[in-house]
């Protein structure tokens, strides 16, 4: 019997504004891990700075609250040190696609088996509503002194270009559907992105609940033959045009659901285990480093290429 999602709550006060999309995302994550029956200590939520960053205090896990933009490298370090851990890195669009965008990109190259959740509300909430990297140009949300002069980044297309092997988009107020996406993302072997569209009732008066709900649709509902799973190169070539169309679709219609999944690519951990053959058995966080307080190696043997035997002259 799986744990109830209630068991993943913590004593901390969930301190978001009323109507914040984060409540929905939190509930979706808690439900997803409960349905996957992940033991709280085997779950790690790493979060950056921002409203969403607080999530790691609200989900019972072995968690870490780090720096602005840096959830992904920390999550990577944790996963590599302890590959049996379920690791989720989460942050807002400012965190993941602004200050931390280099990590958002680079994790894709590694295909580390972690789940990246972007709480995308297109504004910086904690610093009073500045434009986030996903806010389209010329929109002036109420806290902005003038219209936004930056174009918006496309997180799912960027993730695709970066090598993510699972890309999905959800909507914060649809807890049930978002939960399903998060479950699939966690179960996917490799780097997964779940972009979650999230109204910010306090600062984003343009991209509101109504704005989103007029536009979003579920791919698997509107297009029953939608199949974004790729397992061979031929399949990749065949499915790519349609997948790309969905990755760039944004405006009057915004597709939700699994946009892309590649099950052919090996994870970084698998690549490592081809060099360090017993990597999974002796991962960095769980391997002996001494015997009776003494080092395990003798430099004169391991680094023998540096050793000169002078008697040989």
């Amino acid at each position, binding site marked *: 019997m799986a744990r109830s999602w209630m068991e993943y709550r913590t004593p901390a006060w969930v301190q978001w504004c009323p109507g914040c999309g984060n409540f929905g995302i939190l509930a979706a994550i808690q439900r997803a891990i409960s349905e996957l029956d992940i033991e709280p200590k085997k779950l790690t939520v790493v979060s950056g700075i921002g409203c969403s960053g607080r999530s790691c205090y609200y989900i019972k896990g072995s968690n870490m609250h780090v720096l602005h*933009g840096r959830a992904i490298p920390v999550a990577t*370090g*944790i996963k590599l*040190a302890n590959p049996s851990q379920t690791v989720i890195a989460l942050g807002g669009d400012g965190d993941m696609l602004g200050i931390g965008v280099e990590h958002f990109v680079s994790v894709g190259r590694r295909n580390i088996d972690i789940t990246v959740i972007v709480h995308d509300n297109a504004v910086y909430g904690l610093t009073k509503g500045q434009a986030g990297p996903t806010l389209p140009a010329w929109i002036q949300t109420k806290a902005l002194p003038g219209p936004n002069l930056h174009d918006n980044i496309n997180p799912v297309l960027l993730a695709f270009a970066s090598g993510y092997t699972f890309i999905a988009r959800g909507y914060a107020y649809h807890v049930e559907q978002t939960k399903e996406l998060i479950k699939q993302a966690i179960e996917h072997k490799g780097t997964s992105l779940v972009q979650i569209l999230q109204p910010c009732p306090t600062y984003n008066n343009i991209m509101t609940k109504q704005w989103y709900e007029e536009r979003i649709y579920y791919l698997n509902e509107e297009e029953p033959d939608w199949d974004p799973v790729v397992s061979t190169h031929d399949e990749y070539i065949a499915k790519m045009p349609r997948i790309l169309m969905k990755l760039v679709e944004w405006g009057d219609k915004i597709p939700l659901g699994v946009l892309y999944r590649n099950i052919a690519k090996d994870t970084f951990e698998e690549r490592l285990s081809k060099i360090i053959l017993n*990597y999974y058995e002796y991962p*960095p966080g769980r391997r002996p480093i001494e015997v009776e307080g*003494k080092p395990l190696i003798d430099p004169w043997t391991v680094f023998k290429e540096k050793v000169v035997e002078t008697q040989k002259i």
Partner: protein
Amino acid sequence: MKEPDILFLIGGPQGGGIESAGQIALKTLVLKGYSVLGTRDYKSNIMGAHSYYTIRARFSRPGAIRFPVDAVVALDAESILTHFTDVKPGGLFVYDSGVLKTKIDSIQPMEKALKDRLKELFASKGLPPITESAIKIAEENGVKLVPLPLRELVRKLAEKTGASLTSVSKAVNTMGLTAMMYLMGVEPRCVEKGIALHFAAKKKVVNINVEAARLAVEYVESNFGGPRETLPDGPHRGKKVMLATGNDLVAMGKLAGGLTFQSYYPITPASDEAIYMERFRYYELSNDAREKLGVPKLGTVIVQTEDELSAIMMALGAAAAGARASTSTSGPGFALMNEAISLAIMAEIPVVLTIWMRGGPSTGLPTKEGQQDLLHAMFSGHGDNPKIVLASGDHVEAFYDAIKALNWAEKYQTPVVHLLDKYLASTTTSLYPDEIDSSKATIERGVRVDDPSEDYKRYAITENGISPFAPIGAKDMILTGLEHTEEGFPTEDPVIRDEMMAKRRRKFETIAREIPPEEKVVLHGDPDAKITLVSWGSTKPIILEALKLLEEKGVKANFLQIRVFYPFPVKEVLDVLTRAETVINIEQNDLLQAAFLIRGFTGFTIKHHIKKLNGRALWDTEVVQAVLEILETGKEEVVVKGGA
């Protein structure tokens, strides 16, 4: 017989065979039973700029290199023009006789400032601005000239070896090196052994270079005669010797010290450490360990990251999950890591930052020596930012300090900044089994709970300030950079804030108490000497040489080496400084950073300073000269300027 003490340099274009020549020279001398020190000096250029390898060999380990040297090998015009005044009278100057007509202005890679100085010098002596003028001046200075007709020698080599000659640079430098070593009294068969050892498995390369060596000896012998005397064998014949740089030794120390995770972003002079480690990331355990653990090999995960922010953060993640983790960089990368250091302090995560200093500020002198990051290390991170700061003085210290830093990081759950520099990074020395002995090292991890109880608190308030460490995954918990409760939940409560600040302070009081005084400072030489030299880092062996030279001149001094800068050893430093009549501080930075810290922590103001800022290795002789100058004139500051 006086103990032989030989010192020479091989100059040439970067990529022009200097590295192999240096390595062959070091190996040859080691095979002959000598202790060696070899340092490479190169520019921030991939190929073509001038670089040189300076090597010193004697029976006991040489502590310093210095100019003038006993011999120079200069097989291109720029090397001749750069080093013609660096040879002692009576010393050897081996050069290519084919480049004498080369005009100074036609040498593109050469610095304009040097060209201007040379043209001025040559004009003042009525000499034309060509390479030959340098040779004339060297001759006037009493240097023994050994011109090699390189073109003809290479022609002969090409004829002899036929189509198999492909690596011209190596062969050319082997010729120059062998000619010089032969005249210095090193038997050609020793050089041949050195060549064979260096190129080991590459039989063809060995054959060509041995042929090149023979041609050079043949030419030198018939034109200049043999050496005056054969260099006697050194006392280390028959020993096992390790030839390694500071980069290598830190890599070895980390792996021996149980490092299981390292992340890094490429930067000079740090990345060679991680690259070396990466070659051995899945290693054989010693017999004893293999038996007791029942596993033959173990691995260390090494990740090249997208930037230094990622490097430090990945290490922090791995460390939080129980890995013994470190990252390695130099000043610019360290600057990017600053925010993360603060997180590591607040979240109490063990991590080692190995910082290989180079000349700054900014990109500065990326391939040159500097000790300008001490204050950067001390004050890295925002907020109150205590962390252990440790500086290694030489190769042996670098090896054990790498292990010690890892121990301290885990024991005290704190960042440890391990300071080293470019000189140590790229200087090779010979080491013996009793010096690099991993069985002398201990591995300590502090209080770890792998299976914590239900009431475990990650930030439990304890008397010594250290909360037992449980890795991520052992229990539900929270690590955070926000001020927090014992459980890790964020809090802004004034009472808890004070308690947590006090807890973290107590931790550093514990560290200060537990690190033995002899690991914080070392007083070298006679404790009763009236003159005390103060320094830190890679100047150690250089100053030790200087002490001996000073004593020969009747000046008795001791040397206070500061090893740990934080927690600052107030009492230990003050005890020594207040006993001395004259205190002279020696550093390779302009702000006199150690003196600043000494004044700040102890109130003791050092009045005399010797500094070097030109990016070149410090010489023992210039230290001696500067000390004498200060003693004579009472000068507050002497800037020493040796090097090419």
